[in-house]
């Protein structure tokens, strides 16, 4: 009884906070001048600009997904399966771009490649003009997006490779060189994982707001945001949001239909899988990986840090309130995410009740939906006189976090729980322990590590959020990423750079925590 109440409760909460607003949005898109009509859509699809935006969005997302896989899969293989030196160091390095707000990276690239940037300073203004044109083009945006989402492909490749039954490769090793083993056995077996990471990158790029806005590349979420915030045209913003929602649903269906059941040989993580000796090619791979990581991570961050010198007093004075608000919201948000995500993850792992699948689909759908769309949905729902207490308080930001990021805590919980043998809970049940008792004395202590990880990941994602927060934040309640974005246009560069570095530094703390946990905690 209690079990169904808690599990169902978490799902209903997510539906209420995240899904209903989107449903409302969908219904509202069919209403114009107070009655049912396709007017919003007619306006949308009659305009040539819509099609350009759609083309831009789709080509950017596909190209990012494609290149991310081309680079990320080999890097994932190198960092998991070979005796490449400094593997751990490189893994951390590659993860950094993912955990900071993507547009901070584009800012760093602006200081590097822009007209007044480092390259221009070193190589002259003509070269600077070329690099600046590159940065503010499709290819520049593509480059930044690839560097942001490369970690997704790397991490998923690594994860799936590690869950592969090592005997499958060993059996092949008796008759074959590594090249054929990787080509014909290992990589085909993790193909669903590779495709999944492609889809995730596609969806996340599709929803990205900050980078295209900053680099002035016209895509759907940016346009939706501008319609709303610059022109106060709520109907147009809604109509813009719908195509994004539809694309997200299509991607979700692809994931559910084709990738779900196709994963072979899962769950038996043995740590003694064979290592590929790189032998004479080791220096070559080391240089290649070193070069890639220097270009996409070390270079922009070094430029950012160099640029920030002298900007700190002003930065702190301007934004100390946003910094603390960011930490507070993220901490609060992460806690709520664990509270809602844990029961949902439990339900997913135990396949408890028939609606576990629907619940998971809703969470994943909301995760894939662009933050700007969720933001518009929340505003549409709560911006009424009687619900103003939500609309004008931090609640609306927290609602946004829950809507978008519950899938993360749900999935992390589920994978942590899958490591605990069912017999643990069952034996407690036979001993007469009720569900709540089992939960608090068996399940939660055994999945401590997973819970802390999901809190930290939730914290990182709330902290780096721009899409939702920028849409919904009430006056004087902005977070640091939003503050940086609004100050950007008319503040000295070193102040902005300093704020970016501060932002970067506070995101590194939970990452450090995450690494300690994955390394030193058994459970």
């Amino acid at each position, binding site marked *: 009884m209690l079990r169904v109440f808690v599990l169902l409760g978490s799902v209903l909460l997510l539906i209420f906070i995240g899904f209903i607003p989107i449903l409302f949005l969908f219904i509202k898109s069919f209403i114009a001048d107070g009655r049912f009509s396709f007017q919003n859509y007619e306006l949308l699809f009659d305009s040539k600009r819509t099609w350009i935006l759609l083309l831009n969005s789709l080509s950017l997302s596909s190209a990012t997904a494609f290149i991310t896989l081309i680079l990320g899969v080999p890097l994932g293989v190198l960092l998991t399966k070979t005796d490449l030196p400094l593997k751990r160091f490189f893994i951390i390095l590659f993860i950094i771009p993912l955990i900071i707000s993507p547009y901070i990276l584009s800012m760093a690239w602006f200081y590097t490649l822009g007209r007044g940037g480092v390259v221009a300073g070193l190589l002259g203004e003509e070269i600077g003009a070329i690099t600046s044109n590159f940065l503010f083009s499709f290819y520049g945006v593509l480059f930044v997006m690839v560097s942001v989402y490369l970690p997704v492909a790397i991490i998923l490749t690594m994860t799936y490779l590690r869950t592969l*039954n090592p*005997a*499958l490769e*060993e*059996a*092949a*090793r*008796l*008759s*074959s*060189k590594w090249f*054929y083993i990787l080509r*014909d*056995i290992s990589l*085909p*077996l993790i193909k669903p994982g590779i495709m999944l990471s492609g889809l995730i990158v596609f969806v996340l790029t599709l929803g990205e707001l900050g980078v295209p806005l900053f680099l002035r590349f016209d895509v759907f979420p940016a346009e939706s945001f501008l319609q709303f915030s610059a022109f106060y045209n709520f109907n147009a913003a809604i109509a813009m949001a719908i195509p994004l929602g539809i694309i997200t649903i299509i991607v979700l269906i692809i994931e559910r239909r084709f990738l779900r059941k196709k994963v*072979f*040989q899962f769950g038996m993580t043995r740590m003694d899988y*064979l290592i590929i000796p790189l032998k004479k090619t080791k220096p070559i791979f080391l240089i290649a990986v070193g070069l890639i990581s220097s270009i996409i991570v070390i270079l922009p961050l070094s430029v950012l840090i160099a640029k920030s010198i002298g900007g700190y007093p002003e930065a702190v004075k301007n934004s100390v309130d946003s910094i603390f608000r960011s930490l507070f919201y993220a901490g609060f948000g992460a806690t709520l995410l664990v509270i809602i995500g844990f029961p949902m993850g439990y339900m997913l792992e135990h396949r408890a009740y028939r609606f576990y699948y629907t619940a998971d689909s809703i969470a994943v759908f909301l995760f894939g939906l662009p933050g700007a769309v969720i933001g518009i949905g929340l505003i549409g729902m709560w911006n009424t006189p009687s619900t103003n207490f939500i609309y004008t308080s931090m609640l609306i930001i927290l609602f946004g976090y829950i809507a978008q990021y519950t899938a993360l805590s749900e999935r992390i919980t589920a994978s942590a729980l899958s490591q605990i043998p069912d017999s643990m809970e069952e034996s407690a049940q036979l001993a007469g322990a009720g569900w709540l008792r089992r939960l608090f004395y068996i399940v939660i202590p055994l999945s401590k590590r997973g819970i802390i990880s999901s809190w930290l990941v939730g914290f990182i994602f709330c902290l780096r959020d721009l899409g939702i927060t920028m849409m919904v934040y009430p006056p004087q309640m902005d977070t640091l990423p939003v503050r940086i974005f609004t100050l950007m246009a008319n503040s000295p560069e070193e102040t902005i750079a300093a704020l970016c570095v501060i932002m970067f530094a506070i995101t590194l703390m939970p990452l450090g925590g995450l690494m300690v946990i994955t390394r030193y905690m058994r459970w």
Partner: protein
Amino acid sequence: MVIEIEHLHKFYNGKSVIRDLSLNIDKSERLVILGPSGCGKTTLLRMIAGLVVPDRGYIKIDGNVVSKDSKIIVEPENREVGMIFQDLALWPHMTVYKNLEFGLKAKGIIREERESRIDEVIEKIRMREFKNAYPAELSGGQQQRIAIARSLVLKPKILLMDEPLAHLDPELRLVLQKEFLKLHEDFGITVCYVTHNRDEAYNLATRIIFIEHGEILKVTKPI
């Protein structure tokens, strides 16, 4: 002698797993290594196959040194050693035919010869009608035969078997033991078979070696 092992040592985290082990395996014999779980049987087989690097001692296959102390001299793919894993490790995304073909292809054998060798082996194990089946569509016994066929099609000098029957129920185990003896007769291959099951050892072996804590206790021949 197919395999000669002299003064082999292996340590894991400073703990000795194989201790000064010397052993010869003769052509066409069915050597069974019998010992309790954790005594180092799997480690020994994996060192013969080249999947684990020893710390001291050497291993010879057909008179050629394949590893000396902690140096691998012949890579696994060039040792001509077949191995049957406990969970069989059939590649789930490949048909029976493709499973058998992979190693031949990797060794650069031309298509006509691949086909004729696969056909020959598949005929011998009476699995012709399952050529295009996926492993998941086969019964446990059929999977076992395919795993053996996958090794034999490469004409290995020795077949290493790591408790292939350990997970199965007693009845099936007896059936498969008979089947295994028949296959051994048909192919006339040298086998090194590892188990912790005494009955199985006596049913299958032409010679039994008892090991404990990585050392040989005694050697017997069942009647």
